[in-house]
């Protein structure tokens, strides 16, 4: 049988089976659990959900939070993307790089950083108390406003990176054509740039909406009375109302699917000119005064956005118990880091997170590669199914997958692909793997489809068999994309909180849970040190991927 036929007839159905097992079956079981109780079909849980005003409130809150986050993070990210690409100001390159930093900040670490900065005993609150002499915090940083602020200032990075990426391949001749036809800066922005950036803006909005709907850390820590579906699911489950938790889970999946559908309609297909694919050069602002003004504003916004990162670093050097009333800490120590390094119990979560994240990322990379090679021809129905399988976890929030996996792997039914994995080392890495499939699958499949088929033919004409051609031509060409995608998947696993909090065991306790534990015990410095090390590891993974991209 020819290699193409092997792929089509044997590998493709096998892969489809694997994806159905990993991605579809857990969610299907959740759906079934919502309408079955004690072996009977029942809509009792659905009725209970519909009749409970608090459930509606949580669903509406989730929706409102997603919309507010999309608008605020979108405006911020798109504006910053446009300004850093199209205008020129002192330090533009540094600002551009700094603004991408939240991409490597694990979600819980970001939330903790906000706690140190804006929380009741954070730097700002203490500064106000110190200056006014008040003995109670001037505000409680919690509720919808706090969560939206955190979302906007951490999730803007999606729109920011996507808009910058789209502008990098934007044909500058389009702008020149508009200018030659008499369009000023604003008209060109409104009529040419923004419409052509629509796919990037749409994708940014979608990522923000899905992340916001799935967001657990920020509402969990800062939500207060503001309940959203992900926090509701966890609390309902902890209360033992499994069926209701399943209905809540389905409601969250439904909201995510609505977001996905809306975005696919609004975003539209990418429209590209037949340009040279060169980025438009930043337009040098004519007057020195406006350059300085734009520069000052951009630096100001950048520093504000990075303040949580800086705060995290500062707090990581604070001596335990030494920071009580002053705005800024007064006693410094490297002890928090030393504690992490010297105490084997505290160091262990790093090892755990590292092996779980790297195993999951490597496995997801292999699976995505196999799917990419098998689904290379987008016209075949199986290709579309395989691609859909890789993309599905995108629409299903992490909390949902965690619960779905806990459900699926709590009984032994080998015929249904169900094994007892709960309580073992393997469930959490499996969850990381599934969650990272979309981020790793999309770029890898796109890159494989983008390869010139003539390269394979050239290798074959020179006597290379399919494996040699794959190893010596396809794989080296894919390496940069694969490295970037695997790095992203690794970072996702390393900082994961929302699936970990549901699925962890004593042996698979990851760093994020350790951070939460440290905060609960009042060890703020240790929590911050954990956060800093996690951020450094994430940055390191990205830099390593970037390095391999350059070498390639």
């Amino acid at each position, binding site marked *: 049988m020819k290699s193409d036929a092997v792929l089509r007839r044997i590998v493709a159905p096998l892969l489809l089976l694997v994806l159905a097992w990993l991605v579809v079956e857990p969610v299907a079981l959740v759906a079934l659990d919502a309408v079955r109780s004690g072996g009977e079909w029942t809509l009792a849980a659905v009725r209970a959900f519909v009749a409970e005003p608090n459930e509606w409130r949580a669903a509406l809150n989730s929706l409102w939070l997603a919309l507010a986050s999309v608008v605020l993070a979108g405006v911020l990210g798109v504006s910053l993307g446009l300004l850093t690409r199209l205008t020129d100001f002192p330090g533009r390159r540094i600002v551009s790089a700094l603004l991408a930093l939240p991409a490597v900040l694990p979600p819980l670490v970001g939330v903790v950083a906000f706690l140190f900065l804006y929380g009741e005993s954070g730097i700002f609150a203490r500064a106000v108390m110190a200056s006014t002499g008040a003995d109670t915090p001037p505000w409680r940083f919690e509720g919808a406003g706090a969560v939206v602020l955190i979302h906007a200032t951490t999730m803007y990075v999606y729109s920011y990176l996507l808009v910058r990426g789209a502008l990098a391949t934007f044909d500058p001749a389009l702008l020149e054509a508009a200018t030659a036809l008499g369009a000023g800066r604003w008209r060109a922005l409104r009529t040419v740039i923004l419409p052509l950036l629509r796919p990037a803006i749409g994708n940014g909005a979608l990522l923000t909406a899905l992340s916001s709907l799935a967001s657990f850390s920020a509402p969990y820590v800062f939500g207060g009375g503001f309940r959203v579906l992900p926090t509701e699911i966890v609390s309902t489950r902890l209360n033992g109302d499994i069926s209701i938790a399943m209905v809540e889970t389905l409601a969250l999946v439904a909201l995510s699917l609505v977001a996905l559908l809306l975005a696919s309609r609004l975003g539209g297909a990418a429209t590209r*000119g037949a340009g040279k694919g060169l980025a438009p050069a930043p337009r040098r602002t004519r007057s020195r005064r406006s350059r300085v003004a734009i520069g000052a504003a951009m630096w100001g916004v950048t520093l504000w956005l990075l303040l949580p990162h800086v705060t995290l670093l500062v707090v990581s050097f604070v001596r335990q118990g030494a920071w009580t009333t002053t705005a800024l800490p007064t006693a410094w120590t490297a002890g928090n880091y030393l504690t992490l390094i010297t105490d084997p119990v505290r160091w262990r979560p790093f090892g755990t997170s590292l092996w779980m994240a790297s195993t999951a990322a490597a496995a997801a990379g292999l699976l995505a590669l196999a799917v990419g090679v098998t689904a290379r021809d987008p016209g075949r129905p199986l290709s579309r199914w395989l691609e859909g399988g890789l993309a599905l976890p995108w629409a299903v929030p992490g909390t949902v997958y965690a619960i779905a996996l806990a459900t699926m792997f709590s009984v032994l039914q080998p015929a249904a692909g169900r094994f007892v994995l709960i309580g073992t080392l393997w469930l959490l890495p499996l969850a990381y793997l599934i969650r990272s499939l979309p981020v790793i699958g999309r770029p890898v499949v796109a890159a494989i489809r983008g390869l010139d088929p003539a390269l394979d033919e050239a290798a074959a004409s020179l006597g290379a068999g399919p494996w040699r051609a794959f190893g010596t031509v396809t794989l080296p060409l894919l390496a940069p994309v694969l490295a970037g995608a695997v790095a992203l998947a690794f970072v996702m696993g390393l900082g994961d909180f929302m699936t970990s909090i549901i699925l962890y065991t004593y042996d698979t306790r990851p760093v994020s849970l350790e951070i939460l534990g440290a905060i609960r015990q009042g060890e703020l410095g240790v929590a911050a040190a954990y956060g800093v090390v996690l951020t450094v590891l994430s940055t390191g993974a990205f830099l390593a991927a970037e390095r391999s991209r350059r070498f390639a």
Partner: protein
Amino acid sequence: MSTVRLAGLAKRFDTTAVVSDVSLEIAEGELVALLGPSGSGKTTLLRLIAGFEPVDSGRVLLDGDDVTNRPALERRCGMVFQHYALFPHLSVGENVGYGLANERLPRPALDARVAEVLAMVDLKGFESRAVTALSGGQQQRVALARALAPRPRVLLLDEPLSNLDPSLRERTRGELRDLVRRTGITTVLVTHEQEEAFDLADRIALLHRGRLEQVGAPELLYDEPATPFVAGFVGRTSSLRGRVVARDGDLTRVQAGGGVWPARAALDVTGDVLLLIRPEATRFATDGSIAGTVLRRRFAGATAFFSVRLAGGAEIEVAAAPAAAREGDAVRLEPTGVGAHAWAADGIAGGAS
């Protein structure tokens, strides 16, 4: 319609001078082609006229109006880009009407103007089509219509035919020539293809390393090249080292490659010279004074080009009927009296070929 005047234009990118001291006057309704090899600065010069690049020194005047420091959107230059730069999210009609927005025309007048310009480029009724669904030739015509719709002062064409296949290019070239003549708009065309420049331009400005080598009608550049570079770039030439042996009226007689060639040369050219010979400067003749051997024959339809090795090892190219000789033939050659140009060998680096 306007005149274009470039006075001492210069542009550097980092340390490289891309355009150096270019002065050029283009009359109203004239079509001037900026011709030159890659990297000669022709596109940069066009972009300086359009206002897409700030000039380092010199001035750009449109109709006597100094626009050097005016932004591109105030210059009213219609531009057709090499890759057309059609707005992919707008329809054909919206693309063509884009430049009319500043005129604030009522909708019927705007639609009428769009239809009028589309009819000019033979795309009547294409208003609602998507530009991405058009063929390359149709996209090129939409780009032209879009540039012409706001009635620009000058039409700037940046290699507008380079994206078309050869047969379509030939036909589109003819349509472009007719359209420009019909509208009478002052036009600057950038091209690296001399055939295109010969066919379309009233005058050619030949650029080399950012400087103007020669400006003139296509015939002038071909028949009376001002420099060895012009002779080498415009048309085909073979180069020989030779020596002036006599002057005969307007012509200088140069001994080279085992023969004596009548050539055009400046009056003060004496001694050692570089002789550039066009293929039509030599013909096969049984009683010819120059002996040679045919090395290769390149068939080109009605004519063939024969590479002939002369005594002493030099090679020249001869244009003749395809059956005039075969590879390996020993032949005799005779200068025709036209198409040879000589320059003093001193100070010529490299020479042309």
